[in-house]
């Protein structure tokens, strides 16, 4: 199994195996866990990290969820393949930059476990669309199954023990990847971000911590992990996401009404560029694809085409373009290749019509 198999497979996020929706692109649950009695990866010596990796890989590959899945050791991968995994959110930049990290990924790419990142285990489950409870139940089940095979570091008072005090307790980070072009265009995003921050939620860009919000896509997640039950954390996030989705729809409808033909024109222009450009940079394509996704949500384009837009957002990223080309490309080469992939994918799209939503 290799990274090429991951690229070629039909996955949850690229091929819409789950139910996909307007506004919320995906729901993600992450649990931080550590083996009892062993130093955390950042402090462990190389042989200890090896032992940790072996024990975790062995336990994970026994689970039904990872049958016919992928086991990838970072030290054995090329730079480009590691970058592909980061762009897919299967591993973090931190894991990809070290040699002793590993990742075990389920066949449909909904479940992925990072080994030897900041903690021994980072269990991640992702579903397309907004499915907080369903995603949580899969993570909970994985946690139970894994807990039956590995003794986890746990304290009655502090819960699951982690390397960083910001993860201790539940070790739970629940998040939604949301597409907010309406709030961005209306200039409300700063206000929304502040409100979320003040109520204990973090707002990040498309690729997580410290990244910019390319394509008007944001990741919203809980910040606190201790002193709140998993249920309380999920309810808190769920309430806010519902609120943000409503605000986003209000902003979109107001824009469509106030701008009238100019609203449709804006989306149609982006469509025109994507359809005909010969060179497309990563940032430009993300921003234009954001308009196209908005067009699908608003009834300007058929809704069933939205998953193609979602796939292009993932596959238009630099390492993906490079990996697909099968040859080393310079920056212009990537932009040329990206433009051709996008043109091909949009070939059968109809014209952008006035909004109906």
């Amino acid at each position, binding site marked *: 199994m290799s990274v090429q198999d991951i690229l070629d497979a039909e996955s949850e996020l690229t091929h819409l195996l789950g139910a996909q929706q307007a506004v919320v692109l995906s729901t993600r649950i992450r649990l931080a866990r550590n083996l009892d009695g062993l130093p955390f990866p950042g402090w462990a010596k190389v042989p200890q990290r090896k032992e940790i990796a072996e024990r975790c890989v062995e336990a994970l590959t026994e689970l039904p969820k990872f049958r016919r899945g992928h086991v990838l050791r970072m030290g054995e991968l090329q730079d480009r393949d590691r970058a592909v995994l980061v762009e897919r959110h299967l591993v973090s930049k931190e894991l990809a930059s070290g040699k002793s990290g590993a990742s075990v990924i389920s066949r449909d790419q909904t479940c992925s476990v990072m080994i030897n990142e900041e903690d021994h285990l980072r269990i991640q489950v992702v579903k397309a669309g907004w499915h907080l409870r369903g995603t949580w139940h899969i993570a909970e089940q994985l946690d139970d199954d894994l807990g039956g095979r590995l003794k*986890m570091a746990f*304290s009655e008072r502090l819960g699951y023990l982690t390397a960083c005090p910001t993860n201790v307790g539940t070790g739970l980070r629940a998040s939604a990847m949301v597409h907010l072009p309406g709030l961005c265009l209306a200039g409300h995003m700063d206000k929304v971000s502040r409100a979320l921050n003040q109520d204990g939620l973090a707002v990040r860009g498309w690729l997580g911590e410290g990244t910019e919000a390319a394509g008007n896509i944001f990741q919203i997640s809980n910040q606190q992990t201790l002193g709140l039950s998993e249920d309380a954390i999920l309810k808190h996030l769920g309430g806010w996401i519902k609120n943000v989705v409503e605000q986003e729809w209000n902003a979109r409808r107001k824009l469509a009404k106030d701008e009238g033909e100019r609203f449709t024109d804006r989306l149609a222009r982006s469509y025109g560029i994507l359809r005909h450009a010969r060179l497309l940079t990563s940032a430009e394509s993300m921003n234009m694809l954001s308009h196209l996704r908005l067009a699908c949500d608003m009834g300007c384009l058929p809704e069933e085409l939205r998953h193609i837009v979602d796939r292009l957002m993932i596959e238009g990223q630099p390492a993906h373009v490079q990996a697909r080309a099968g040859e080393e490309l310079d920056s212009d080469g990537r932009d040329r290749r990206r433009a051709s992939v996008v043109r091909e994918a949009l070939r059968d799209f109809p014209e952008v019509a006035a909004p109906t939503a």
Partner: protein
Amino acid sequence: MSKPLKCSLCEEAATVHLAQVVHNKVTKVHLCEACAQKGGATDPAVFQLADALTSATQAAPTTTCPQCGFTDIDFRKRGRLGCPSCWEVFGDALGALLTKVQHEAEHVGRAPAGMLPTGQLRRRLDGARREMEQAVAAENFEVAARLRDEIAVLEQQLTPS
């Protein structure tokens, strides 16, 4: 080798270097630790995590984890702990930090299978007993009966088998 910088205030060796933008011009100030402390130059927002454990002026470790050799100075540098036992070793200092960055300093979530979360059960038992007394006082017998059943279950769970 360049000459070590001296503190702008007292001629001691400077270890804190600040760059400030005033009227679009960058002004650099070099301070020794004592003067930096006095002037409040160590930004609490930036160093909040690490400073909760050790004061900024400390040089030698005062606490070492017997399990993994991790020290309070290591925590100051990294903001991460060495091993699960460190949570016990640095418990007091971490408690203060946890109340700052977390909702509460005690876990109320899931536990590994087979690990009885006695602390949580006991807290819930105390709560249920209080609630039952209140329900009885308010002659709310339906609620009191439900709580009585819950208390019985909790007491049974807390009895070692």
